[in-house]
């Protein structure tokens, strides 16, 4: 067991733990708590990205998700001033069916992975990829130029839409 593997288990455990806390969150009914755990999940995941040598994406992940997206969440939660909600009655039947469905999906996933039938099996011939920033940028501006440009349009559209939506009187 190398250092790398240890780190993997460490970060994977953290990611999953924080993920569970985002969803289940036994400490508080306050969405802020979930948001904070989401930040931690993202950060742990960035660690996993680093282990995968995707440094650029790790940085972007933290920058965009932790630095912007979740701050936005916090903003909204604060703006809405969601009260510390009274505990709503748990819908047991719904919960059980939901968990069962998710468990089914998970079961299928795990079975597929264990059987190695994904068609995604590691390409033994290919050397593990060193994800540098420069090759990624090169790819982005050559092969993926059109999607990249379309993405910019999407961002513009989202911007316009959000500005419109946040006008006071929404007609």
């Amino acid at each position: 067991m190398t250092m790398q593997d240890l780190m993997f288990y460490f970060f994977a455990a953290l990611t999953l733990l924080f993920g569970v806390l985002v969803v289940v969150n036994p400490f508080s009914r306050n969405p802020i708590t979930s948001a904070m755990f989401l930040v931690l999940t993202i950060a742990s995941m960035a660690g996993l990205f680093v282990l995968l040598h995707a440094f650029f994406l790790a940085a972007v992940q933290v920058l965009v998700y932790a630095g912007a997206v979740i701050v936005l969440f916090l903003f909204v939660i604060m703006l809405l001033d969601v009260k510390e909600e009274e505990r709503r009655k748990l819908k047991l039947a719904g919960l059980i069916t939901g968990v069962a469905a998710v468990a089914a999906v998970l079961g299928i996933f795990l079975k597929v992975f264990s059987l190695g039938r994904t068609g995604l099996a590691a390409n033994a011939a290919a050397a593990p990829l060193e994800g540098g920033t420069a090759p990624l940028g090169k790819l982005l501006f050559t092969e993926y130029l059109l999607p990249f440009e379309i993405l910019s349009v999407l961002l513009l559209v989202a911007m316009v839409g959000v500005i419109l939506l946040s006008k006071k009187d929404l007609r």
Partner: protein
Amino acid sequence: MAWLDNLSATQQFVLFSAIKIACVIGVLMPLFAYTVMAERRISAWIQDRIGPNRVGPFGLLQPMADGLKALLKEDFCPGHARKIYFWLAPAITVIPALLTIAVIPFGSKLGNQSMVIADLNVGILYTFGIVSLGVYGIVLAGYAANSKYPFLGGIRSSAQMISYEIAMGMSVIPVFMLVGSLNLSAVIGYQTGGLFSWLVFKQPLAFFIFMVSAFAETNRFPFDLPESEQELVGGYNTEYSSMKFAMFFMGEYFNMIASSAMMVTLFLGGWTLPFFGLDQPATTVGMGLLHIGIFFGKVIALLGLTIWVRWMWPRFRYDQLMDLGWRRFLPLALVNIVITAVILWMRS
């Protein structure tokens, strides 16, 4: 030091990293303390006052006294505050500031160890990522206090930081276009060989935007709106006292130091000086220490500038602040990128 050579590479890495981290923190804490001290003295000098001069010779022990006071004061927590976040917020403010420093090369070489804690090849992106986390401390502080002035301060601050992060990020892109790497050591390497290879001379506009944005990011004057005492009583840290307040303070000054270090690295040649061959990696321990000294000299000079700025300018209004960020700096930075790109393209 034979035992050192017997250690495996990993063990060496862990050992030296630990030593470096300890040293950096060991330097940073006094630096913080004496920056505060310096600020008080300089402000007094500028305003023609005396300033703290009672504790120790020339008041040099004043920071110790302050720290002791902060530690010994009652740790008061308002009843209506959200406890966990109220406790968490100061810590969250300090940590990112410290983390930022990890990628900054504060010297060339000491022995065969390069004087940087983590020589990441996406160094600057890492910095920005960490800096962007700094918002949380302030937002949470504002939220946790559960009263209106801190809340407004928190909201203002986060909006301000997010806005200026963009201008800041945009302003440094030309730097990396010139250097061709995101690695900060590479940036320093690029600035060797003459005074005018310093990026501050090649990218004065970028430097300017970066510096002003850094003031805004660290909530320093003239952009200290989150804590503008006259409007918000003190902003997000209104409800804080004792050590928790000191931690916010610490966070602010760490941020200042980190941003100054960043500016030194990106624009002012880092640990290099264009004379006496000081711009080449050190071969002897003495040279290494000299490089560290040069670096600190530059950082301290920039800190002085920051402090000076604080007492020279009036505070901006909030809308002016936003206007400046979005409608002046962002377009300017974009234009700068385009111009740099065109020049590079014509040269190639």
